[in-house]
């Protein structure tokens, strides 16, 4: 290796690192700001100076958010034990987010498979329908969804006020993308594999479950991720639909911290950080899959 070559390589590496460190600074700046706010005990609108660790920094906000009951979210305001705590909110958020993912994956994958593999009457119309849904904003769909889910009664309450109902409502908005993405991915799976299986005597369902789904893990991961995100972070539908504080989610709790007149920014920031960690973890865990799961029909094209 010539010295010139080595120098060139070092320069290249340095150049790359400099560039990427710059990008890192760009990415990290707002994050550090949120952390700074969460550590600031003075609890005013914004910290008065640009320091990462503000004077008198404390983990008080985190402690409060994680361990103390949320006094606004109580089944019975006089009984503190009926108030929601972080673990309970977390549990509900998980239920809703996972429920949304499940509904999206099950419904989305079966519909996408049918659109991908079968030729049937109404196929083109259906595909067009999903594209339309993808582009239509859902501003005006809250009221009809509310009424719809209120029609279904589970025991003495309606589906609408349960976490399942909420998951279904979220799935309603996340499914168009799921179908579109999954269909695109299924299209790239070679039909020869299924044909081989059919020759071996497998049924349609078996080929779907044993061959297509495992090969489509990346696209399924993307679907799970996006629908989980929706279920985890949405609060407008949640606050409109749910009446029972014991079913409230983390996103709803975050929203409740925004006061009519002022917001306790320390706690709000701390809650934001803690609420974002599971999503971040999920993203990191599924990172490999996202990269290939979004390559809709890309290189196999």
């Amino acid at each position, binding site marked *: 290796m010539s010295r010139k070559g080595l120098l060139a390589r070092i320069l290249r590496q340095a150049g790359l690192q400099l560039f990427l460190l710059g*990008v890192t600074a760009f990415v990290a700046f707002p994050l550090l700001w949120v952390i700074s706010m969460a550590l600031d005990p003075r609890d005013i609108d914004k910290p008065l100076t640009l320091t990462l660790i503000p004077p008198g920094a404390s983990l008080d906000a985190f402690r409060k958010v994680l361990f103390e009951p949320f006094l606004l979210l109580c089944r019975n305001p006089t009984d503190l034990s009926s108030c929601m705590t972080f673990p309970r909110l977390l549990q509900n958020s998980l239920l809703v987010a996972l429920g949304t993912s499940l509904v999206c994956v099950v419904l989305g994958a079966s519909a996408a498979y049918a659109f991908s593999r*079968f030729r049937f009457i109404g196929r083109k119309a259906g595909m067009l329908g999903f594209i339309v849904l993808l582009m239509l904003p859902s501003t005006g769909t809250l009221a009809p969804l509310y009424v719809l889910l209120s029609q279904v009664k589970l025991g003495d309450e309606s589906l609408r006020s349960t976490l399942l109902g909420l998951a279904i*409502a979220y799935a309603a908005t996340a499914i168009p993308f799921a179908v579109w993405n999954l269909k695109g991915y299924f299209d790239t799976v070679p039909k020869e594999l299924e044909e081989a299986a059919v020759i071996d005597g497998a049924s349609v369902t078996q080929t779907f479950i044993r061959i297509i789904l495992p090969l489509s893990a990346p696209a399924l991961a993307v679907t799970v991720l996006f629908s989980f995100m929706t279920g985890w972070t949405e609060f407008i539908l949640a606050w409109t639909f749910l009446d029972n504080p014991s079913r409230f989610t983390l996103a709803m709790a975050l929203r409740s911290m925004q006061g009519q007149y002022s917001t306790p920014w320390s706690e709000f920031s701390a809650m934001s950080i803690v609420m974002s960690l599971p999503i971040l973890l999920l993203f990191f865990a599924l990172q490999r899959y996202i990269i290939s799961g979004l390559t809709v029909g890309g290189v196999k094209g």
Partner: protein
Amino acid sequence: MATISVPSSRPGQRAVGDLSGRLRRSRTAWIYILPAGLIMGVISFFPQLYQVGMSLTDYRIQNLRFNLFNPETYVKYAPEFVGVENFLRILNNTINVENYDFLRLLLFNLTWTFSNVAFHVGLGVLIALALNSRELIGRRVYRALFIIPWALPGYITALTWKNMYDDRFGAINQLFGVANGVLGTSLPTDTRWMVVAQPPIGGLLAFLPLAFYAVLLANVWLGWPFMTVVATGALQSIPHELYEAAEMDGASSWQKFWRITAPLIRPAMVPAIMLGTIWTFNQFNVIYFISEGDPLGRTEILVTQAFKLVYEKRLYGLAAAFSLVVFIILFAITLINNRVTRATEAYDVA
């Protein structure tokens, strides 16, 4: 698929006399799709159909008690059918909303969309290339870090950026202060980002206030990781031999990029750009929470205007019509994009 148009069926399945086969396959398909389709029809399609219906009526607060499932409410609360009047009013600027100008709204929305997507793709691909360099140290760490803006809940990042743009205590202005101290510059440290009405760049771009550049920065911060992820996937499947062969032929980096990289990542990037366009066009969180449409409605986009029509003016029919207008525009953009993509595909050197 490089486009999102409906793919044509394969020749092999159109064999003459295969109608019974088609029907049989149809039935299997329908059994497969029926449960999913039914549920989706109810929860996804029906509310949107309802919205379409609302857009043709003058639905206001007096009609709130109208319930499709309860025929008793039809007589008293049914909204008045007005046909396309809502749409005409939207286009003619005759709706009574402050600072409303449809053409300016549309122009801004389109400018917002295309400038964002341009930056997203440019920055995203550039960073993906950097990350894809074989000799890069710390690749995994960077990849993990760069996913964060995309992974964080949009509501939280929007409020954070809003906070950062505050004119007295915001991080951006404080950063300028620090820069003034360290670099000796004299940047203003109390810019009222969302309020200043003087456009920083005049002439053709005079309709873009300072707030536009501020929210542009915030949205670029949010959106480039998605493009990087897609580009990375595509880059990873380009065989290295192609580059080696090009180098032996004496190709420069520039030529390598435009002749090899760009055409090969294109099939992956195009649907991503399509998605990015739709998402950016309807990017609610960033506009609504950061600039709130200020100053004077010059950073308002269609979906935030529709939202305000529902929650502030309570004009539900008009808001529904707005949503439909958004759809029509996006659909048009998609069609145009498909035509352009297909036209230029033929010229690719694969």
